[in-house]
């Protein structure tokens, strides 16, 4: 068989995000994979150096369109750490609830992408519908469907509207009520298992060697979760479990995502119960036109739906950041793990593996 050069993306139905992989294939086998990012490169880190601390806050969420919320969170956390701002108690709980909502939404999006990739339209449609219900709640809370611009340095932008928690619980119950259907049609579907089992296996040693985080490493049995390791916001005030699997393949990763989603929903209920019923939701930050942050540097991290998200930020005492660098989970997954995991697999499984690693292209390119 002759070797073929196959371009997977950027214009491709199975591609989530604007990303491209150059494959060298022999028949159906992949000999070599070359990730080719940069289609979404906007030079965020440079843009942020040209904007003030407050102006950056609507900007950062644009880095990752699938889950903008953790980007806002990490930027806020970094600025709070540099400037020494404390978040009020209620603000912390609102942040945590909001981030967990975002995690559920993001995982549903991942489920859509994966099901769509396998040609499993039915589940894809359901997942997207349920995500849309969550987006309605986001719209009510923050005023936009996608780019919420809600977590700001010092807390959150607005308090919960009246009766929001009730509607949130109701919607989550509505989604949770469909979990048996999801299980029956998707997760316990023999053909899905056939398709996903043993695909894109990353053993624990490989995962550690290649710096994998999030559900990729959780699927190898390691309970590596920043929410537990370095608790931020209100995560140290609730009990939660970290679901793990041991297979290390796409199947385990998908089941980890499902369990994580269910755990998140339970966590939201717990957080709502524990949340202070009233109080301040944010600390006033200085005047945005005069806001300078003392010289210093900070590395903060949080657990996004795809894994550890880090931000290294340097201030030279000015009105603008001197340097920011995002450590996004997809960067390792998309550029290191994916290239290795694809070798030896079938062409049919490129998207399968890529989405099971949950590679989000804008996050890589920034």
């Amino acid at each position, binding site marked *: 068989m002759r070797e073929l050069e196959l371009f997977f993306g950027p214009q491709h139905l199975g591609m989530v995000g604007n990303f491209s992989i150059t494959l060298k294939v022999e028949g159906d086998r992949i000999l070599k994979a070359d990730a080719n990012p940069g*289609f979404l490169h*906007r030079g965020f880190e440079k843009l942020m150096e040209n904007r003030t601390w407050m102006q950056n806050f609507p900007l950062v969420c644009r880095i990752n369109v699938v889950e903008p919320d953790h980007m806002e969170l990490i930027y806020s956390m970094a600025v709070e750490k540099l400037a020494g701002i404390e978040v009020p108690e209620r603000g912390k709980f609102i942040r945590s609830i909001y981030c967990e909502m975002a995690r559920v939404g993001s995982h549903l999006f991942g489920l859509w992408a994966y099901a769509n990739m396998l040609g499993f339209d039915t589940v894809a449609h359901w997942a997207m519908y349920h995500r849309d219900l969550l987006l309605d709640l986001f719209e009510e809370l923050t005023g936009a*469907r996608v780019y919420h611009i809600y977590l700001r340095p010092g807390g959150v932008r607005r308090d919960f509207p009246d009766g929001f928690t009730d509607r949130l619980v109701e919607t989550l119950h509505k989604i949770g009520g469909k979990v048996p259907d999801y299980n029956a049609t998707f997760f316990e579907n023999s053909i899905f298992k056939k398709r996903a089992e043993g695909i894109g296996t990353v053993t624990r040693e490989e995962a550690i060697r290649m710096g994998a985080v999030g559900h990729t490493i959780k699927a190898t049995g390691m309970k590596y979760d920043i929410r537990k390791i370095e608790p931020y916001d209100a995560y140290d005030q609730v009990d939660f479990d970290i679901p793990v699997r041991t297979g290390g393949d796409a199947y385990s990763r998908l089941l980890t995502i499902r369990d994580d989603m269910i755990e998140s929903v339970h966590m939201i209920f717990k957080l709502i119960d524990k949340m202070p019923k009233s109080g301040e939701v944010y600390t006033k930050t200085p005047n945005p036109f005069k806001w300078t942050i003392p010289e210093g540097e900070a590395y903060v991290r949080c657990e996004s739906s795809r894994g550890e998200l880090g931000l290294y930020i340097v201030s030279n005492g000015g009105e603008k950041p001197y340097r920011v660098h995002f450590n996004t989970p997809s960067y390792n997954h998309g550029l290191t793990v994916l290239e290795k995991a694809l070798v030896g697999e079938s062409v049919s499984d490129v998207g399968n593996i890529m989405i099971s690693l949950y590679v989000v*292209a804008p996050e890589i*390119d920034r």
Partner: protein
Amino acid sequence: MDRNQISKWFKNPGKMANKYSFHVVYFCTGCGIIEIPPSITTRWDAERFGIIPVATPRQANLFLITGYVSTKTLKAIIRTYEQMPEPKYTVAFGSCPINGGMYYDSYNTITSLDKYIPVDGYIAGCMPRPEAIFIGVTHLWKLIDMDKADGYKRYRRDYKFYRANQEQLFKELGWPPLFKDASL
């Protein structure tokens, strides 16, 4: 479907069919793509109007430029646009293709799209809601009815200039001109 519609169908079936069967190139050019899955799935269900995503540009007649366009993507966009069969329509999403949007000072994103390929409609918003996409489609219907959605004709007519702009940005485009006899 009223009588008026039926007579239109008989008069120009191609135009009418183009209206009610938008096959969209599924190309995640920018962040606006996040609203495409909701609009083609259960909640909004664009298939009611015959809008479905297709895998290759050859089968498509609608190109949604979803958001900002980096230079690397622009190359792919031009290539994809030229692969689409005529008649074809382009709709640009959000602020960024109009005047740069958030990334007006980014060194890697272009500021206005219509210098490189023709655009038939812009949808305001960052990003546009699914509702806006639907209303955008209805506007496109009106434009097609009035023969104003003539982006592909403009591209053919002014190909020389578009090509010149593309070459000014990229130096080396990597493929031959689409129209050999492009002139004024």
